[in-house]
């Protein structure tokens, strides 16, 4: 019996080679630029950050790790990872179901679960590429920008969590589209909107006296354990990975059972 192996995975990766590269390069370059500002910022001291914003980690510029946890790993890069996951995950199932292409693909000898998992694996490869690009950018700029106090292990741990964060929102968008058959635009909007909302929740929760709510947001597990200082936080990374697995499993469970829309 002939098999199609990983045809759907390689095709998805090939079709997305440019867009994944652009995501990784753009995220890496932006991270690099902002990280390179550290010498100036540490000299000026960012006294201008309002008290209410302290939960976003923008107030500690006395150390390299503190600064990086602010604008770079606390704001810019995780939001980009969130949007990458939302945009790419919305294309896993929703886009092709909306156009009707999914009918043709699933009339071929590839099961629904297999199609979904192979496409999600391509999304994961794109997330890894983003994490890798950011890590490479950090290591490249580390010495020149006075960031030497953060070890390579710290950068690796934080970019691992970044990859897992992108994966989580990718899993949310993929699972949402797979389970419901909503349009691509809706799946993207809901996922990205939810991402921004929980990001804000994570930042504001301590100020509004609801610090416990942080534990409900993925951003807490992404950066709360301060991997730049403390290295890999196994439990936090496991929470992110497990949440992705649950979302994909639930989406797949529903996807193989429901009617496909046209």
């Amino acid at each position, binding site marked *: *019996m*002939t*098999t*199609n192996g990983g*045809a*759907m995975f390689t*095709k998805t990766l090939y*079709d997305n080679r440019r867009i994944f590269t652009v995501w990784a390069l753009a995220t890496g370059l932006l991270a690099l630029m902002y990280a390179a500002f550290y010498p100036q910022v540490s000299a000026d001291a960012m006294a201008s950050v309002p008290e209410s914003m302290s939960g976003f980690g923008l107030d500690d510029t006395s150390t390299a790790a503190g600064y990086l946890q602010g604008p770079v790993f606390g704001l810019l890069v995780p939001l980009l990872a969130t949007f990458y996951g939302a945009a790419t995950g919305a294309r896993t199932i929703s886009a092709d179901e909306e*156009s*009707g*292409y999914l*009918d*043709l*693909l*699933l*009339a*071929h*000898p*590839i*099961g629904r679960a297999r199609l979904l998992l192979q496409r999600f694996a391509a999304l994961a490869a794109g997330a890894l590429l983003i994490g890798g690009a950011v890590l490479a950018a950090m290591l490249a700029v580390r010495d020149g920008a006075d960031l030497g106090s953060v070890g390579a292990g710290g950068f690796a741990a934080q970019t691992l969590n970044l990859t897992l964060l992108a994966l989580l929102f990718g899993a949310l968008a993929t699972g949402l589209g797979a389970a419901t058959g909503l349009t691509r635009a809706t799946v993207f909007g809901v996922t990205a909107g939810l991402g921004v909302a929980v990001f804000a929740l994570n930042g504001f929760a301590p100020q509004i006296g609801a610090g416990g709510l942080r534990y409900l947001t993925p951003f807490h597990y992404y950066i709360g354990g301060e991997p730049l200082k403390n290295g890999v936080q196994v439990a936090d990374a496991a929470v992110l990975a497990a949440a992705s697995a649950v979302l994909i499993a639930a989406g797949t469970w529903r996807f193989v*059972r429901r*009617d*496909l829309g*046209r």
Partner: protein
Amino acid sequence: MHTAIELTELTKSYGSRRGLDGLSLQVRAGEVFGYLGPNGAGKSTTIRLLLDLIRPTSGSARVLGLDPRADAARLHRRTGYLAGDFVVDGRRRAGECLAFLARLRGGVPAHRITGLAARLDVDLDARIKSLSKGNRQKVGLIQAFMHEPELLILDEPTSGLDPLVQQTFLDMVGEARDNGQTVFMSSHILSEVEAVTDRVAIIREGALVALDTVDALRARSSLRVRVTFAAPVPAGEFAALPGVQHVSADGDTLTCTVDGSPDALVKAAAQYTVTGLHADTQDLEELFQAYYTGPRAA
């Protein structure tokens, strides 16, 4: 195996709306089966059930002896499918799309693709989105036929094809049958499929209204007769004759329809002086229109 497709009381409801309503029919292995009905009759619903894209509310379907859901991947390896509005990734080249779909099937000899492309005059280097609807549909034909599947499931396959290509398509269907393949194709126009189909089913509002050979359906069509006499005749006398219906008399002219042999009518008319006789068969398309629009049988 002598049955390619067997539908048993197949029902699909969309909320309160019925897509299919207890449809039962059998498609024999090796035949070209026309699946006809007006738009919205449930043709695409049936086909999407056969492909496991949607699931029945009740009843069952067996395709090539397999369960469309439990054996989906195994079944899809042995079938080819074409939708009326063939959709693929528009940014890719036609050849790229076909090569990928072939890989999903575990490989198809390249000469099958190039051979069909040459026959249908498809430019494999063209991007899908740059192709006209007809040319895109030709790409769809190639992917459905390229692996020589045991069963071809074609949903309105001729939509958008120009007449010349339609003929090539009908030739391909005929060759598939000669090759032992089964073809299940839907259409809302009988004349498009009449030339190649062995049997046709007509569905309406999700239910079967007729299933027979085209010839048998034609034989079912009645004769329309108009007789003029030298003097007015009693219409009641003719209305009682076997097979004679819709009798109306207008002065010395009598019109009626006749199912089966016109012998009784001719002999009855011969008792009077006949000055004119006109008879023609009901057009087959008209017969289909009658199935589409007349009172629902059964």
